[in-house]
């Protein structure tokens, strides 16, 4: 039987097969948790006197409600409010009580859950991974089957290390050729979502493959898989290869020594067999992709930066954004720029932003916030001097966390403000009530910060040299 990558991982985790009457019971190798979607599940455990079945396979970090400012002189963190503080404290209490490894504030390993899992080598090919967070799809970049669950299923995973699942359908997305210079993984995934639609992959697990994907580094592959959920997919996957193995080798939780070799042998079997069929197959021509930006209130409302807002754009979305059909996005005034989130807060994203910001200034009147995905990313960036590039440009260099991606920690944009953001959701009010989000790549965000308006990062760099001189 020819099998897809998804089918190989799925089948190797079936505890009981599905029937007409009951879903399959799927074993979960790794359970990642954070402070927002776990407390109610812990409450149930406590009420019923249950234990966590596999605390050794459960890892916790704090990221959504955490401040991105440094602790004060007494080492106290300045939370946005009591609720945020108590949510974070609750996670600590829960992890202590149930014996779960926690990367807490102050720990070098703390950061956004989808940055931390891969970085620690917890995320591995062939694993099943769940988290009470829709962007768990990120981890599929390693050839894992990784998906977001709700708090009930967080509880199920605590109690049984399994969840009930019907087998999803498969969608293959083949990217032919390679991306042009100055076009990033973020532009590609925005173009894919614009093409298939925000509900286009509902009920499916996507596998991305083809030349452009093979050439990508792991950070870029994670950006792609991260946004699979924005097309409605259960998960996104990419077959592991040498790039994957090189990334994982030597990471704290990655296998070592003899076991490492055995792991690589096993992981090398994780690919879609020649002749295996997807329920749906889509092809994308990479050379046709241009730098993208969103104009509306969900991620499918994306266009090349240089084109105009389509005539058929939903009116309620344009009304919220304050835009008109047939208008150009270029030159739109920008109030805030956010570079961060589990989509684009890794070291290569920061390098991309720094390359644009080097020896330039953020436009007066623009607030630019740069938030690394984890402490390790932050430290790496600082060792390369990127922090100084950002600070010299007049941007804020912050402590790691989700920050302005969803504004739970108080990092928000104000009503009516326009923010070019490297995050993944431009939903109404996502970055703060009344705020308006334009999703884009780190290069576009950085260039727009300097210009004070939406610009194409490629043509912009030439312009600015002239302006600054």
């Amino acid at each position: 039987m020819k099998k897809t990558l998804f089918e190989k991982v799925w089948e190797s985790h079936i505890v009981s097969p599905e029937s007409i009457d009951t879903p399959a019971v799927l074993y979960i190798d790794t359970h990642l948790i954070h402070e927002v979607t776990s407390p109610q599940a812990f409450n149930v455990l406590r009420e019923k006197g249950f234990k966590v079945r596999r605390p050794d396979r459960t890892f916790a970090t704090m990221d959504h409600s955490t401040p991105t400012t440094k602790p004060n002189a007494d080492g106290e963190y300045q939370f946005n409010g009591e609720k945020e503080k108590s949510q974070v404290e609750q996670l600590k209490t829960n992890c202590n009580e149930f014996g779960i490894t926690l990367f807490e504030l102050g720990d070098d390993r703390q950061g956004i859950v989808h940055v931390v899992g891969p970085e620690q080598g917890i995320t591995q090919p062939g694993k099943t991974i769940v988290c009470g967070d829709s962007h768990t799809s990120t981890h599929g970049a390693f050839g894992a089957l990784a998906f977001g669950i709700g708090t009930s299923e967080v509880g199920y995973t605590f109690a049984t290390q399994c969840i009930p699942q019907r087998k999803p359908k498969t969608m293959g997305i083949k990217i032919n050729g390679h991306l042009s210079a100055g076009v990033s993984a973020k532009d590609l995934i925005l173009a894919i979502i614009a093409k298939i639609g925000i509900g286009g992959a509902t009920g499916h697990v996507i596998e991305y493959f083809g030349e452009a994907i093979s050439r990508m580094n792991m950070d870029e592959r994670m950006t792609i898989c991260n946004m699979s959920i924005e097309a409605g997919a259960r998960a996104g996957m990419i077959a592991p290869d040498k790039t994957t193995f090189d990334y994982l080798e030597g990471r704290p939780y990655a296998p070592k020594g003899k076991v490492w070799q055995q792991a690589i042998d096993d992981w090398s079997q994780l690919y879609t067999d020649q002749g295996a069929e997807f329920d749906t197959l889509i092809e994308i021509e990479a050379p046709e992709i241009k730098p993208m930006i969103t104009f509306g209130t969900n991620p499918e409302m994306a266009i090349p930066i240089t084109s105009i807002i389509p005539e058929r754009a939903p009116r309620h979305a344009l009304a919220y954004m304050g835009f008109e059909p047939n208008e150009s996005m270029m030159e739109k005034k920008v109030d805030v720029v956010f570079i961060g989130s589990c989509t684009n807060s890794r070291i290569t994203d920061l390098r991309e932003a720094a390359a644009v910001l080097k020896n330039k200034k953020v436009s007066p009147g623009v607030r630019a916030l740069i938030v690394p995905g984890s402490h390790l990313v932050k430290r790496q960036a600082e060792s390369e001097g990127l922090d100084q590039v950002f600070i010299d440009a007049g941007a804020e260099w912050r402590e790691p966390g989700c920050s302005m991606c969803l504004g739970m920690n108080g990092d928000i944009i104000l009503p009516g403000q326009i923010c070019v953001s490297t995050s993944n959701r431009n939903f109404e009010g996502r970055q703060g009530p009344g705020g308006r989000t334009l999703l884009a790549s780190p290069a576009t965000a950085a260039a727009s910060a300097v210009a004070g308006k939406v610009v194409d990062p490629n043509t912009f760099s030439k312009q600015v040299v002239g302006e600054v001189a």
Partner: protein
Amino acid sequence: MSTTNQNKQTFSREPIKQVEGVAAVIDIENIDTDQIIPAEYLKITNKDGLGEHLFSNWRYFGNSESDRQVNPEFVLNKPETKTARILVAGDNLGCGSSREHAPWALLDFGIQVVVSSSIADIFKNNSVKNGLLPIVVNEDEHQYLLTQNAKQISVDIEKQTISTAEKSFEFQIEPFARFCFLNGMDQLDFLFSQEQQITEFEAQQTVYA
């Protein structure tokens, strides 16, 4: 690592066989869970009081809880639909964030059934587990139901029908979800019944760490 567990089957909920009530229609596509319940209201460690904040971006004017005023035009604020038990929404309902606070907020408000032409996977999963029934209907039925604002609708889970005063349609529901609704079974009980298989699975598995 010991895998013995004292976890036992102790869950049950009220069986739900039928839901009858007024329908509220929000004819907007791609309603995301950030709209159903904004992040501001996820800072809790329990499930209490979320109904008050359901659709708060649309239900209230003002950008914070302290200065907000009721938007009298929003469907869930209107006298004839504020007691709605059935929500009919545009295509691709519940996309985005996995927050289970979305079904919690709908249920706390009094909504027991959501209907659309497609419903996002995680939201659908989360709904079922809390006794909120997600119903997916075809295009024609959807168009018709979108005209039923403030009308009485009844849903029979056993017969898998959704009916107005004029019409009745059959709908499909995943058989296990239906069983759980009709019998008041929590899905966790089903997983607990697999304890032995889980232990056997773990024993034969190769794990790299």
